[in-house]
């Protein structure tokens, strides 16, 4: 499959998600449903790789995207300030998307998937809340929480449909993307809860920066190995490496920063 065909399938999935959750007031006042391209790529990866794929599986992938959109909406709510109309509607957008994913799976008579996704949402919510707890955690525990947040929904989809061979690659890539975003945040001093906890844990933010760049390099190496393990074809591997997880080695990053 060519790069432009992959891109076009991802866009078409994005449009389908948009159409499934469309609501006039929400369209007017909220930023609308948002699902990262990388998540759509990995939901569609078995299809891109030529694995068994059916309209039912595609519909199911769409519902996972809707759950991602629901949880993303709730991530956008400001932590402390009283919220304004756009944010009030964003809360409800997340709730509405949850109702829609449930209804879609009910219509598809796929109640088991409802249960799997609900269990995944529980784990994701627990992991997100863990960043507000006061107890000390090791770096490994923080990493585990981030892994759950980034990958649990996708993993439940892979497990349900027997696509677990892609699980290591997807985990590495989604973590890679998250750490790349966190590094950008760190550089612009826009600290997330994850960065604050890591800074506390690693004592100084320079160590956090070092940790993140090391992680990115190591994950990149792992991604290359997993691409070989999964036997992705050349175009697909190139799309992943250039569009989804474009990488700068640590040395290059340091050079850029002068």
């Amino acid at each position, binding site marked *: 499959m060519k790069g432009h065909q992959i891109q076009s399938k991802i866009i078409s999935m994005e449009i389908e998600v948009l159409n499934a959750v469309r609501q006039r007031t929400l369209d007017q006042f909220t930023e609308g449903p948002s699902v990262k391209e990388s998540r759509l790529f990995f939901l569609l990866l078995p299809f891109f790789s030529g694995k068994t794929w059916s309209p039912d599986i595609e519909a199911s992938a769409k519902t996972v995207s809707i759950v991602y959109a629901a949880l993303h909406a709730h991530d956008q*709510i*400001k932590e402390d300030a009283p919220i304004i109309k756009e944010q009030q*509607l964003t809360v*409800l957008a997340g*709730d509405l998307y949850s109702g*829609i994913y449930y209804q879609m799976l009910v219509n598809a008579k796929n109640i088991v998937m409802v249960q799997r996704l609900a*269990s995944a949402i529980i784990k994701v919510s*627990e992991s997100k*809340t863990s960043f507000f707890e006061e*107890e000390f955690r090791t770096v490994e525990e923080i990493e585990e929480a981030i892994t759950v947040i980034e990958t649990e929904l996708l993993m439940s989809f892979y497990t349900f449909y027997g696509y677990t061979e892609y699980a290591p690659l997807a985990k590495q890539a989604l973590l890679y993307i998250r750490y790349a975003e966190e590094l950008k945040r760190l550089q612009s001093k826009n600290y997330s809860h994850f960065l604050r906890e890591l800074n506390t844990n690693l004592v100084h933010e320079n160590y956090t920066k070092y940790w993140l760049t090391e992680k990115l390099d190591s994950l990149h190496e792992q991604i290359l190995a997993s691409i070989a393990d999964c036997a992705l074809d050349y175009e697909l591997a190139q799309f992943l490496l250039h569009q989804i997880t474009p990488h700068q080695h640590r040395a290059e990053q340091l050079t850029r920063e002068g």
Partner: protein
Amino acid sequence: MEKMKLKLLYSDLKPELEMIEKELEQAVDSESLLLNDASLHLLQAGGKRIRPVFVLLAGKFGNYDINVLKKVAVPLELIHMASLVHDDVIDDSEIRRGQPTVKSQWNNSVAMYTGDFILARALEHITKIESPRVHEILSKTLIEVCRGEIIQIQDKYRLDQNLRDYFRRIKRKTALLISSSCELGALVSGTDEKTAAHLRRFGYFIGMSFQIIDDILDFTSTDEELGKPAGSDFIQGNITLPILCARKDPELYAMLKSNLNKNLSDEERFKVVEAIRNSSGIEEAKAMSERYLQKALRELSFLPKGQGVKTMRKIAFFIGKRKF
């Protein structure tokens, strides 16, 4: 006291409700200490547990089996709880049922994740039931409840909205979930379609009456009785039936208009509350609630006589006369 009186009405369901209470506690059990605290905090603040009660009572018209009924009753209460945590973020509410809200005790983000967690637990629970019809009803209800809330935000501060807007809103916001509680209780107990339909309509009418009374009490009760400031609906821009009925008076209309969407001091808030209290709006809204109550009672008259109907009738009368 009022909650006690209500509980006395369904005292014959006490063992089952205690079982449901335990199931609710287990359902919100989490590996995250914070989520555990936040969910239990919400659970222990209490509530009338009206939805589980209606599930159980509806079950009396079929093969009453608590082990089946609890699979519906628990998720319905969880769905209600999840919506309350998110509503408190939307309304920026500090207090609910006299207790600090999750968002005020922790923050908006924790409240969002607590709501997501509780809703997911509800769905995890309801999937123990295989009946497609149950899932069709519940998923549709969930969506409609959200749409009702979206409309509520759209209609905020619109003093000129019509009565139809209000009824459409409370139908989705409150009546549908109560109506679904009755219908689902009936369905999982294997009642016939006709009985389930009467129970669904009973739940709908009683839900409408219940919400109207709630909206009246927001003006007629004290802060202490409500466990939140009286007139909160008006402060948050929710134009409810007492206001819609009272606005016919041009002077009152002008006063409401000038106080809408403003940061009111306690004194100003009391003035608005007092003005509505003394207007014809309260009596007119009560009459409307009574009409829904009568419709609910009429639905009961089509059902086979027995303890179920008896208790439902008592609850209906209580709802019509409750003080807070």
